[in-house]
């Protein structure tokens, strides 16, 4: 009997290890031949630990399993959810990038190969550099890290640059609250990232790669480090990638707790062993990146989507989506929400559908008040904006951004002035200090919001002006985008900024 208990860290945070231990113990006591697989998560965090039992009818799921339910599970007395693929929340998705996540044993390369793994890389090995880059351009893939820059154009710049050494750097410094897609895919399907980086290396002529992975993700670091070792032993990485005679190898590097290192130029400085301060652009990292050499810096989800594009073809991928947002978006539904998790779907669902229909509203059962989309630098959306479709341009027109596609739901107990203050406070703590609008502006922002809280009406135009300065004058998105949560809170929830003033009058 084959039983799957996720080894994903969110599942573990909800007790999956205890369930796995109980299963192993109980099976041994009964003399049952149970093969226990620690798969990744299917993304339904609300059902974790989600145990799956392999049967002739398919993989049958059991949600929120506790260790004391294990005897019943083995007796067949526990109520199941039916086939996992048929669970409505799962069945409604279009899983391209996350197709294997939760399905396979993350560290079994044969399992990976049996489910479509390495097909993309083998195809890329038969293509020229220019053809590889063109395939990515044709797919319409835009950087999933937040900025949404066309991935193929970035690759083209690096491919055409002349240099003795080029690099592929994967940005796995997923520091945005509400996002966990990078962590999930690394823990659930690490070979897909390795394959994507190898294809990127072939496409631009880079033989070395680095994954900059945040220290807050010890499980992901552990799994990816093991996967890289296995990939090297099996000839996926090294001097002779899959026997092609072409070289690509990579290393995992651990971050050190600085949020700003998710910004690509400060990430490069950090990787070089410097303070993680932001670099002015130009020069673009594509031309002068890691150690001054041409470097592709791509987010985990961008790179893990690459094998899918090469396996199924650019057109297949581009056929999904909305407007200039092609392919799928990996929505991460989080915060105060009933059914939270990762939901991969074509661009185009509205915000309201995601929060109410898929997410099921708040976990607390109270009304939704605000949804922050795109991490700590994303806008707080009001329920009046729930008609907005999930798309880069569509969110932009609403004064928001999609970012890394994390959504944090808040119920009506949230105080938006406090959240605006937190955004400024966070920016002050995490500012790299290089540019004045961010370094000083964030501190002044906290003070100005405190003045508003104390009922000073003159502080509101001052805050607005300060946000303009930060937006226009900051070197990177930390100072430049902190005004998104602050101003959206002020604009969309003015009542929270007026209470004390009215009380004083």
């Amino acid at each position, binding site marked *: 009997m084959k039983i799957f208990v996720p080894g994903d860290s969110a599942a573990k945070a909800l007790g999956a290890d205890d369930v796995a231990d109980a299963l192993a113990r109980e099976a041994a006591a009964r003399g049952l031949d149970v093969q226990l697989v620690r798969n990744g998560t299917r993304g339904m965090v609300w059902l974790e630990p989600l145990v799956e039992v392999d049967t002739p009818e398919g993989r049958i799921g059991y949600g929120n399993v506790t260790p004391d339910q294990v005897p019943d599970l083995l007796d067949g007395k526990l109520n199941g959810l039916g086939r996992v693929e048929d669970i409505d929340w799962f069945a409604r998705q279009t899983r391209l990038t996350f197709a294997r996540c939760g399905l396979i044993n993350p560290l079994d390369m044969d399992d990976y190969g049996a489910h479509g793994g390495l097909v993309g890389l083998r195809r890329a090995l038969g293509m020229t550099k220019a053809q590889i880059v063109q395939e990515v351009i044709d797919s319409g893939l835009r950087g999933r890290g937040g900025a949404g820059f066309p991935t193929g154009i970035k690759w083209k710049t690096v491919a055409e640059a002349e240099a003795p050494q080029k690099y592929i750097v994967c940005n796995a410094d997923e520091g945005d*609250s*509400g996002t966990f897609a990078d962590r999930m895919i690394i823990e659930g399907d690490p070979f897909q990232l390795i394959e994507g980086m190898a294809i990127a290396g072939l496409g631009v002529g880079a033989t070395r790669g680095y994954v900059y992975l945040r220290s*807050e993700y010890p499980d992901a670091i552990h799994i990816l480090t093991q996967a890289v070792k296995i990939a090297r032993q099996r000839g996926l990485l090294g001097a002779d990638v899959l026997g092609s005679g072409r070289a690509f190898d990579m290393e995992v*590097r651990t971050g050190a*707790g600085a949020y700003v290192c998710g910004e690509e130029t400060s990430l490069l400085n950090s990787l070089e062993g410097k303070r993680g301060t932001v670099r002015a652009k130009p020069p673009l990292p594509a031309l002068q990146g890691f150690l001054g050499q041409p470097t592709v810096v791509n987010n985990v989800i961008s790179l893990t989507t690459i094998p899918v594009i090469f396996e199924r073809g650019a057109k297949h991928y581009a056929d999904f989506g909305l407007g200039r947002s092609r392919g799928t978006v990996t929505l991460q*539904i989080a915060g105060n929400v009933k059914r939270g998790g*990762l939901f991969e779907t074509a661009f185009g669902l509205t915000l309201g559908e995601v929060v109410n229909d898929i997410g099921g509203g708040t*976990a607390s059962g109270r009304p939704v008040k605000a949804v*922050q989309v795109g991490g700590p630098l994303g806008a707080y959306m009001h329920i009046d904006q729930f008609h907005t479709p999930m798309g880069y341009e569509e969110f932009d027109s609403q004064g928001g951004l999609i970012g890394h596609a994390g959504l944090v739901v808040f119920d009506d107990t949230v105080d938006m002035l406090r959240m605006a203050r937190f955004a400024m406070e966070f920016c002050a703590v995490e500012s790299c200090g290089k540019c004045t609008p961010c370094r000083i502006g964030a501190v002044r922002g906290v003070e100005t919001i405190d003045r508003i809280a104390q009922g000073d009406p003159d502080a509101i135009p001052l805050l607005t002006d300060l946000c303009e300065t930060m937006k226009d004058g900051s070197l990177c998105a930390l100072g430049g985008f902190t005004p998104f949560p602050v101003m959206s809170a002020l604009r969309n929830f003015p009542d929270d900024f007026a209470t004390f003033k009215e009380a004083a009058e």
Partner: protein
Amino acid sequence: MHSHAPAPTEEEIRGVVAPLASLEGPLLPMLHALQETWGFVPQAAVPVLADILNLGRAEVHGVISFYHDFRDHPAGRHVLKICRAEACQSMGANALAESTLQKLGIGWHGTTSNGALTVEPVYCLGMCACAPAAMVDGKVVGRVDDARMDRILAEVGA
């Protein structure tokens, strides 16, 4: 466990960092290795790193002090990180952190008087769909309420 160990010698420090010298951009891996070995980055490592990497001591110090992860003194026997980011706040992380710190009688970055536990803030553990979250010595815990927190504190002897 680390707090009563004698200060590391230059030779011991070199033994930890020298094998990493051939990496591209070796300083962060070296600092992680030092902290892994001693639980903090010893002051005595600064001149050694400066020498090996041909950097000024001020530059090395500047890098160490830039990153939240690196400590200049030992932490308690256990480290509890409580997430303060937005998704956890939406599920009551502020109240949880406040009551935890109050119970322990310490502030952020403080260590309990018996040396059992240091509490640090963290901004996102990627547990945003099972908030509020915390991490005890590298092990993540989700949907932490007061009862679960009390169990954690009891387990680490705080």
